[in-house]
């Protein structure tokens, strides 16, 4: 199984490997979520959803279902 942003622990960093382009809104890319970029999980909301991430200098919150479509490598 691929690791995705949803598998990160709080504070953990990784690099974005691939975004499943058919399901990812263009907006997420435009806000700086791009392949090869470092991503850090800052905080999880109660009930583990949404996820608060730092990517490319931006601080964003995305839903778990979106995070599960972004695979990562260490």
């Amino acid at each position, binding site marked *: 199984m691929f690791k995705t942003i949803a598998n990160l622990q709080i504070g953990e960093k990784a690099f974005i490997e691939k975004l499943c382009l058919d399901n990812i809104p263009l907006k997420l890319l435009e806000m700086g979520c791009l392949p090869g970029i470092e991503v850090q999980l800052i905080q999880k909301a109660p009930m583990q*959803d949404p996820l608060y991430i730092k990517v490319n200098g931006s601080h964003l919150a995305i*839903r778990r279902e979106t995070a599960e479509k972004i695979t990562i490598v260490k």
Partner: protein
Amino acid sequence: MSDDKVVKVALVGNPNTGKTSLFNQLTGLKQKVGNYPGITVEKKLGLCKLSNTIKAEVTDLPGTYSINPTSLDETLVLDTLLNEEKESFPDVIVVVVEIENIKRNLLLFTQIKDLKIPTILVINMIDQMKRKGITIDVKQLEEKLNTKIVLASARKKTGIEELKFAILDYKKLDINPISKITDRIDKDYFSRLKNAFPEFPLYKSWLLITQNNEFDFLNDTQKQIVSKFREDLGCIKRYQHKETIFRYQIINEVLKDSFNVDKTKASDLRGILDRVLTHKIFGYVIFALILLFIFQGIFDWATYPMDLIDGAFASLSSWVKTVLPPGTFTNLIAEGIVPGIGGIVIFIPQIAILFTFISILEETGYMSRVVFLMDKIMRKFGMSGKSVIPLISGTACSIPAIMASRNISNWKERLITILVIPFTTCSARLPVYAILIALIIPDKRVLGILNLQGLTMMALYLLGFTAAILSAVLLNSTLKIKGKSLFVIEMPNYKIPSIKNIFYEVVEKTKAFILGAGKIILAISIVLWFLASNGPTKFKNAEDFVTSKQENKNLSEIMLQKKVASYKLEHSYIGYMGKSIEPVIKPMGYDWKIGIALISSFAAREVFVGALATIYNVDSDSENPGTIKQRMAAEVNPDTGKKRFDFPTGVSLLLFYAFAMQCVGTLAIVKRETNSWKWPILQLVGMGLLAYISAIIAFNIFS
């Protein structure tokens, strides 16, 4: 003055870049808010003097992360910048970026630069530079981005004059794109596109084919070419992704040498605040306390100015009668217009307090944390974390609240939010609640500190929210709409709110409400007064009829006058209207006078109090009008001999006003926002039935 030259300036930028602060600095009080034709997005325009002969007309466009829109507000930015025929098409665009998020903010700049319109880049919040350890090489950046750069701090008022000079000089700006990004994506494809629209800049043509909406300014042949290109959707999507990746590559390249951050200087205030404010327990506790504080403000602090206003208009009414000669005109002013205006002015304290709080929470960046905390919970009810702000705004007025739901990109979540917002206790209900509570709930304290009347008010708020949540659950399970989720929100840095921005926001929101709802209230007040002081034959012959009656022969002059007035009201036009609906409203415990108030408040709830004021004003001893509350308390139910506004009737009225959809303004806005009559009709019928049935049940239980 009319010879003055006007330069049209469009202010564009990501949210949270201080764009609005800059707008306020440039234009000051010379602002006006209008609507874009056809849609209800607010258009903020302001004038700014550039030199003795040249002025700038500045438009503050809605904040957006990209030129590719994901919401109605953002579509407007694209529309304004593409349609050259429109009056609002700018001579020069000012793109505002924030120093700390410059990388992401520049994406929008590189897109706009490709449109070949003169563009100035403002780097805002430079006062933060030193503290954050940021250094920047402006000359190099200007060269690489092929633009004029202005360093500014809208809050510290620096760079404003420099920006004005840059705007004056806009004709000297280089309009060439930064780099030929389209060649890197697919040279052949884009040269085909260029040949298809030789009259447009290439990037404009690309935007025309990547959007879903129709562009009215295109002719039929152009429209055909657009739809031809749109057929290959997969290709467009792939190229859009590539475009974004390339743009970031260029931005990284540009910033590599000219922008530097010394990471050791970064403070972790954001981290600490985030850990507390989004904590799974403290986060909710803090949010609950803030809400409690806001409601305290609305109920407690606002009552002082509201009582003053209520009293002032009552005295004004009597004063008018003593000063002006008696007659129809004086009555129109004293009994129609003055109480009507009073009914509008009385809302100002509550609306101003609520919007002050909301804009402080938005300015500080805290609202995004609330969205983050509440998203999962709200999704259980078919809504989004972004529904929280509209639902809170709904406690002021449903109209701006429904408009605030526009940034919810999932249609089903947005629709449910729009449909349930009118259940939240808006300020128009407050005067109705306040007066009924004062009449039926004793002003006592329980447990030493809690005021019984305040608790009742709190209970009514909770009732409204509960009704909203339960109907959302019901709608979520019955509506069959599928939509893609586009939930991506920025968590901005925490900021100290700017008093100036909050002030402008509050003034603007209050003004919009007063002018919008105010017109309806005033017009209805005058119509009501007319209907109550005119009538068919029996009304005209009232005096003769009453005096000639045997039983009235021995009455004093004053008592006789009262009898006449009462008889007149009963046989006025509005008296007949109220009587005709009496059979329908009797099960809820109401008489024809309350019926009149119900009819009038179907335009807007707050008219209830104004209508009763007019009715009892006409009905009472006109030498001494007194306040509305006193008059209502004195009213007796002739059938039972008890007070008209007793406990069962009061509770029944409270429930009716809590649930019924009695606001023409809201219905109109729901129609516009959903583009269908289906949803406002559903609200009107559904909420009306709920109100009617629960009022009947309550009245029968308590009597």
